[in-house]
């Protein structure tokens, strides 16, 4: 343990020192870039590859890997071979930060995809920003990451120029969910629960605000703890408040149990959550009780988009051990956005990587625009995706079925 922390401190200090002196010392290696040998550009991936969210993390890793393979096969960027190097953050912010430091330290890494969790992203942003290394998250939805802590009061300002994402924010997802509950499902009395995490708490708060604004009533608000299993107390509160619906901000391991226990407590009401519960494991988590539960997720169902068919086919052909899961399409697009940015930079620089490749790629990312797996991929002035498509899914006979896809309107 002692050695390890020493190692981390040493890496952090070295990374800091390297960043400061980066201006003058990057060139010796890149000289070989434009000649006969191919330059290797590494895309770092940070995701939970172990732990209870690993199913999502593995999907992210594999999808970026696929993007790199496709780019190499098509010779997407002349003279450049893409490689993927993955880091496991176990959904823990401090591991994410250590991974970010390692990535910054690795000169071959010119862009990063990840992480899954907004809370982890928070700890990584600063590290990347100081090193000009671009980061594209396929799954973070917390608005503060791109629009600053004061986004709720309307004072938006982008805190980190290196941060981008291909998933829409919770401002859009939470409001979309509230509109669906109020307008389509005609719910009026909702009980709001979250898991106290950056993602869950933010999403639930945005949902509650919008639901109230529309004229609905929030009859109760409570929180549960991640990794616990007994939510019978909260569940009986749901029943006693007479709520006609529940909104849950959190992830599927707790969401599945909560849904089950709410129904066991005698409240026959649906639970809706965000993309964090949109996973088959939500249904598997608790027997048969969650028929009729709802989830919103960013984008249109990957299987329904024409643009996604090639992705699904290619993914299948690679025989990855894990499915692409909820964020596969976004991860592929995130990886592809970096590849496009590298392409733009290389083409602007006579076919080879410039000395300040990282900064140039970050700049180029803001301008990419292409038709991706999940639709049109480009970023606005905050680094957020311009794609505002969302879908509501419903548990029907033990599987998620899409019930409504729409582009979010104010």
């Amino acid at each position, binding site marked *: 343990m002692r050695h390890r922390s020493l190692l981390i401190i040493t890496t952090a200090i070295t990374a800091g020192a390297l960043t400061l002196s980066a201006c003058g010392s990057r060139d010796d290696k890149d000289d070989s870039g434009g000649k006969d040998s191919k330059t290797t550009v590494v895309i770092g991936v940070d995701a939970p590859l*172990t*732990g*209870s969210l*690993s*199913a999502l993390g593995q999907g992210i890793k594999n999808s970026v890997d696929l993007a790199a393979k496709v780019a190499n096969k098509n010779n997407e960027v002349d003279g450049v071979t893409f490689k993927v190097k993955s880091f496991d953050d176990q959904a823990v912010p401090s591991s994410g930060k250590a991974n970010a430091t390692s990535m910054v330290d690795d000169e071959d890494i010119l862009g990063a995809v990840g992480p899954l969790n907004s809370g982890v992203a928070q700890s990584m942003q600063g590290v990347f920003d100081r090193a000009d290394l671009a980061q594209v998250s396929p799954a973070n939805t917390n608005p503060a990451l791109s629009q600053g802590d004061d986004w709720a009061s309307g004072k938006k300002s982008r805190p980190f120029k290196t941060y981008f994402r291909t998933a829409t924010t919770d401002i859009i997802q939470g409001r979309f969910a509230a509109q669906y509950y109020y307008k389509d499902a005609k719910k009026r009395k909702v009980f709001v*629960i979250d898991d*106290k995490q950056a993602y869950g708490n933010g999403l639930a708060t945005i949902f509650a605000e919008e639901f109230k604004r529309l004229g609905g009533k929030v009859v109760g*608000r*409570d*929180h*549960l*703890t991640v*990794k*616990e*299993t*007994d*939510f*019978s*107390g*909260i569940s*009986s*509160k749901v029943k*006693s408040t007479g709520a006609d619906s529940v909104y849950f901000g959190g992830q599927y*391991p707790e969401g*599945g*149990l909560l849904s*089950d*226990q709410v129904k*066991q*407590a*005698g409240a026959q009401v649906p639970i809706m959550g965000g993309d964090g519960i949109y996973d088959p*494991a939500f249904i*598997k*988590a*608790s*027997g048969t009780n969650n028929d009729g539960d709802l989830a919103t997720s960013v984008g249109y169902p990957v299987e329904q988009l024409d643009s996604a068919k090639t992705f699904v086919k290619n993914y299948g052909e690679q025989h990855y051990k894990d499915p692409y899961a909820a964020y596969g399409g976004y991860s592929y697009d995130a990886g592809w956005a970096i590849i496009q940015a590298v392409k733009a930079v290389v083409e602007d620089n006579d076919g080879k990587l410039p000395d300040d490749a990282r900064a140039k790629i970050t700049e180029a990312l803001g301008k990419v625009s292409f038709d991706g797996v999940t639709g049109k991929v480009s970023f606005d002035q905050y680094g957020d995706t311009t794609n505002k498509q969302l879908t509501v899914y419903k548990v029907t006979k033990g599987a998620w079925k899409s019930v409504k896809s729409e582009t979010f309107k104010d």
Partner: protein
Amino acid sequence: MHELPQTLVNGLTLGALYGLIAIGYTMVYGIVQLINFAHGEIFMIGGFGALTIYIWLPSGTALSLALPLMLIGGVIASVAIATAAERFAYRPLRGGPRLAPLITAIGLSIALQQAVWAFYPDAKKPRSFPQFEGSSFEIFSNLHIQRGDAFLLIAAPVCMLALGLFVSKSRAGRAMQATAQDPDTAKLMGINTDRIIVMAFAIGGAFAAVAALSHGLKYGQINFEMGFIAGLKAFTAAVLGGIGNIYGAMLGGVVLGIVEALAIKYIQDIPGMDQLGGGAWKDVWAFTLLIVVLLVRPQGLLGERVADRA
């Protein structure tokens, strides 16, 4: 107030679960003064042992038929891991510095967790556990007991009664008490203390397996991480009740469960306390209670004051 009975029953079932796991902490501590932090994982492995049996049985087997077999499977898995841990991880360190086995226990707990994650098929996500058909029993209009909880509410007192009889009436049980009191003298009296220690680990493991089966039936799922929080809460229950005392473990569990349930439900309703209630604060209240109890009675609710050994 008409929801008080339901809240108490929720707390009681949760507490019985804590109590069953706490037995393992308390027995091992009572005899070797070791806090077996891997016990939460022994609990978790019991759940996977029971699930394995269910998977092996022909599909469609009625749960009532499968249940005894699952119980046996869970107990075998838990007891095997518990005794193996004693033999290979703790016994070599016996007599060494107190801190060494404690750190081994923490390491073992992580190793067991990751082993299940890596080698048990599909354990990377929560695994669904068979559940009883049908809804809950309605006792009164405002009191429901889930079918899964019913198993727990029967199993916990039965196990406790059996353990109580074993410890007070049987020869082995009395040898166990003697070893707990003074291992050296017990050895001089011809008691094989090594065997007694293995027995303590085995009994703790068996109770953990019963708890794990109850957990699976109650929540309909098990996962490789479930031992951590359950183990921590059960350890708290053991300390609360008086570590080393088997009845104390059960009492501590029940008290802890009920305090959590009441804290979620009622603290918000106290005027001026609406910010301090609900699910977010239940652990705060549970641990506040622990601190208060330990301040007033450092030996725990049922523990006896023991002089420090010279």
